């Protein structure tokens, strides 16, 4: 492994299942001595938003890989019918279910995971254009977010890094 390897994640999604890839890989990178930068943009800003972070959800709609058999039903490859996804409470149910699955493998909730990354030295930034669009400021973000930066700033700070878009 090269001594100065640097990996950067762009988190653009706020769904519960899309918050974890950067957390898992970022944590693994830090554990292996790789510098980590995470840029939160658009819906991905929910991951660092104080009011939203603990409430990330997973809707069953369009999740074609989410089969009813995952919930222990003998239904083989049958998915959750999209028509059921519009029932009030379905998103809450699938979110609860996914959080349980995540807990079962020993992974912490999003907020705690992110704190581990910050404590491990990951550098976190919010996207300027998204912040302006949603009317947010640094006060909306959890401690540990370094700054609100432009896309150009992000390019400068990830010179030579490997970039993963999520």
């Amino acid at each position, binding site marked *: 492994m090269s001594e100065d390897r640097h990996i950067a994640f762009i988190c653009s999604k706020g769904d519960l299942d899309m918050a974890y890839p950067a957390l*898992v890989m970022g*944590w*693994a990178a*830090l*554990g*292996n*001595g*790789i510098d980590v930068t995470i840029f939160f943009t658009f819906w991905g800003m929910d991951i660092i938003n104080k009011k939203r972070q603990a409430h990330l959800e997973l809707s069953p709609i369009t999740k074609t890989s989410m089969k009813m058999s995952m919930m222990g039903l003998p239904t083989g490859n049958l998915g959750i019918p999209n028509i059921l996804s519009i029932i009030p409470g379905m998103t809450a149910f699938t979110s609860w279910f996914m959080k349980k699955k995540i807990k079962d*493998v*020993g*992974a*912490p909730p999003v907020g705690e995971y992110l*704190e*581990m990354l910050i*404590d*491990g*030295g990951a550098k976190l930034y919010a996207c300027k254009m998204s912040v302006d669009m949603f009317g947010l400021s640094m006060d909306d973000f959890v401690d540990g977010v370094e700054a609100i930066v432009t896309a150009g700033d992000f390019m400068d700070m990830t010179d030579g890094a490997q970039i993963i878009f999520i």
Partner: protein
Amino acid sequence: MSALETIERNEEGFLVHPADWTKELAVEIAQEEGLDELSEAHWKVIEFARANAESSGASPTLRQITNGAGVPTKELFKLFPKGPAKKVAKISGLGKPEGCV
């Protein structure tokens, strides 16, 4: 001649046989990893990792170390900078941590 030279290690420098491990070896491996001295806080982590591996059969993950040994994440990264997961395992004479968290 250092004790480490006679010990079988894999290409990444992990001990092939965890039973070969001694405190003296740990000190030598730590020096290779850029840690000149192992403090009491380092030993607390190393001893936890060894005990954990003995009972579970697997090298502990960082989260198992922070939770189990009661060492905060920040301190763990300070004690074993630039890659604590591999460094702790290597110095403790264990294989790579099994698990992602």
